């Protein structure tokens, strides 16, 4: 049984900038922030974190602005060395990460000492694709058009407009609010967990060009189950499933603007959900738009995942967005009084403990792994031993 206790002292060197070295970058690691808005009319893609919830939570845990730049790590397999001491947090897909060999829990802030090595393994199947490494002070690659987000197709942002490579050194910004390790965010309903479900239910506002489709076509879209194909990436999810009938036989429109979550239907009648790296304009009719609060889970859905679409009103979706803001961006974070991992033979359990204002403790077990198969465990009430 190994035991890890978080440190709660303030980050060292809080008025100096730090550095992280990339040792291994996995399949694709990208610097991403809240996105590059304001230049779509010049053809510049917004990009930004594919799972905005995970970016926001990670930044909050380390005392940053919720939209500061972090590293978005696709499918783990990455390793980083802290060249200077730093406070950090991992959010999004659960990967079985370690700091100098000590297992870490997601959604908790930690202190790393100088020369500490952070290793991310492959994500646990069904627990999402993308993990976020947020560091107190934020990742400070040069901002391009007001954002540090990497858009690989147009070679803008991040490090030289490309994915991170071994040997890259990322500067960490000045820490304005002293970051404290041991902060905890209970993400019982986080986006990464939803991909466990048999089908991910995604809510949409119909339109803007739903009138380009027949009534039968719209029924097909709303009543069918679609599968995420392996031709999916940060630009969009290409789905396979029943063909959606257009009203006139044509799916083409005069090119117009698209948004994050636009569901466009090209000539083969199979929907594509556009995501963070989409081009600003497109020439296919858009049957619906995924609501903002459901976008993060699309940023975590792996090929093969089943998706269903359900209609919702604009008013309802905006209420959900206000609720999200209250849930993710406003509340005080819990203080993790303790976090630890338990290893019994092949069983691996990561556990965090929070304490409320009257000293009651909540034990939150995140995940159990037996022979590399993941079993999520729901929150369990912790009764401290007397």
């Amino acid at each position: 049984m190994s035991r890890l206790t978080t440190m709660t002292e303030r980050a060292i060197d809080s008025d100096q900038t730090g550095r992280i070295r990339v040792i291994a970058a996995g399949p694709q690691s990208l610097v991403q922030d809240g996105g590059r808005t304001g230049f779509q009319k010049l053809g510049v893609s917004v990009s930004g974190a594919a799972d905005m919830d995970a970016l926001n939570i990670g930044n909050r845990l380390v005392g940053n602005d919720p939209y500061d730049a972090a590293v978005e790590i696709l499918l783990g397999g990455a390793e980083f060395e802290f060249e200077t001491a730093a406070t950090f947090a991992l959010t999004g897909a659960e990967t079985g990460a370690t700091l100098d060999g000590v297992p870490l829990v997601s959604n908790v802030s930690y202190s790393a000492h100088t020369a500490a090595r952070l290793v991310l393994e492959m994500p646990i199947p069904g627990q999402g694709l993308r993990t976020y490494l947020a560091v107190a002070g934020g990742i400070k690659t040069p901002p391009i058009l007001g954002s540090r987000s990497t858009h690989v197709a147009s070679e803008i942002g991040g490090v030289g407009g490309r994915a991170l490579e071994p040997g890259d050194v990322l500067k960490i910004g000045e820490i304005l609010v002293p970051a404290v390790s041991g902060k905890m965010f209970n993400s019982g309903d986080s986006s990464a967990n939803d991909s466990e479900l048999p089908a991910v239910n995604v809510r949409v506002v119909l339109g803007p060009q739903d009138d380009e489709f027949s009534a039968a076509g719209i029924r097909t879209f709303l009543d069918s189950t679609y599968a995420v194909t392996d031709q999916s990436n940060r630009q969009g999810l290409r789905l396979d499933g029943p063909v959606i009938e257009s009203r006139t036989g044509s799916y083409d429109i005069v090119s117009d603007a698209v948004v994050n979550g636009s569901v466009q239907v090209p000539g083969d009648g199979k929907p594509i959900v556009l995501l963070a790296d989409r081009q600003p304009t497109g020439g296919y009719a858009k049957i619906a738009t995924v609501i903002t609060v459901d976008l993060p889970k699309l940023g975590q859905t792996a090929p093969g995942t089943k998706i269903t679409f359900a209609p919702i009103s604009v008013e309802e979706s905006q209420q959900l967005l206000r609720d999200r803001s209250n849930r993710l961006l406003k509340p005080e974070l819990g203080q993790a009084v303790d976090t630890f991992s338990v290893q019994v033979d092949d069983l691996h359990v990561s556990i965090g403990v929070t304490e409320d204002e009257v000293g009651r403790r909540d034990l939150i077990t995140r995940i159990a792994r037996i022979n590399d198969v993941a079993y999520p465990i729901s929150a369990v009430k912790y009764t401290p031993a007397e």
Partner: protein
Amino acid sequence: MTEQAPAADQNVEYPRILAVGDSALLIEFGSEIDPGVNSRVYALAGQIEASHNAAVVELVPTYRSLLVNYNPLVSDYREMSRFLDEAVAGANEIPVSAAQPNVIELPVVYGGEDGPDLETVAEHAGLSTREVIEIHSGTDYRVYMLGFAPGFPYLGGLDPRIACPRLKTPRTKVPAGSVGIAESQTGVYPNASPGGWQLIGRTAVKLFDHGLAIANTSPSLITPGSEVRFVPVDNHD
């Protein structure tokens, strides 16, 4: 089963305001590529920019519509719809500008290595390469919108005599500044990218430079609502 549907547009009255999810509204002025419709788009964009509405995040003008991205935590659907109704009414009263548009001259070396498909286009048109160059450079092209890639303009007004289908197999890399024709469109690639347009020439002018934004200058040389004129030159000096 196919339901009998009227042809597009028969029952549609423009301009119309459509919801695009929970964070954007779209104002459509028509369904066709038309200079008058496009001018209405830019008139409305100007009207909204002048209002300094704090909820407006970003405007994306296109051929025949304006996308208004807004922050639903600052304003909501009902309030934004009302605001846009009023802005549309206000913009309709503005006469479409009679002012001369900004003309951007791009020196172009036609043919040779810079325009490997010039002869294909000439052959398809049944014209000499010289005639294709004269026709292509003899028109000022309206910039209806930008999209596809940073600084990529959608130009209107290509002479139908030199229209030409796309390449059967797109090139994996088209050099930056390449001037091309695809069906009835012409355009210029601001950056090297894959592309299937017939390449007739190339300009050495840098079309997109994100460094310019630091000096508060547009990072894109070609801006929406302006016009582009291709000027034949013998070399890139």
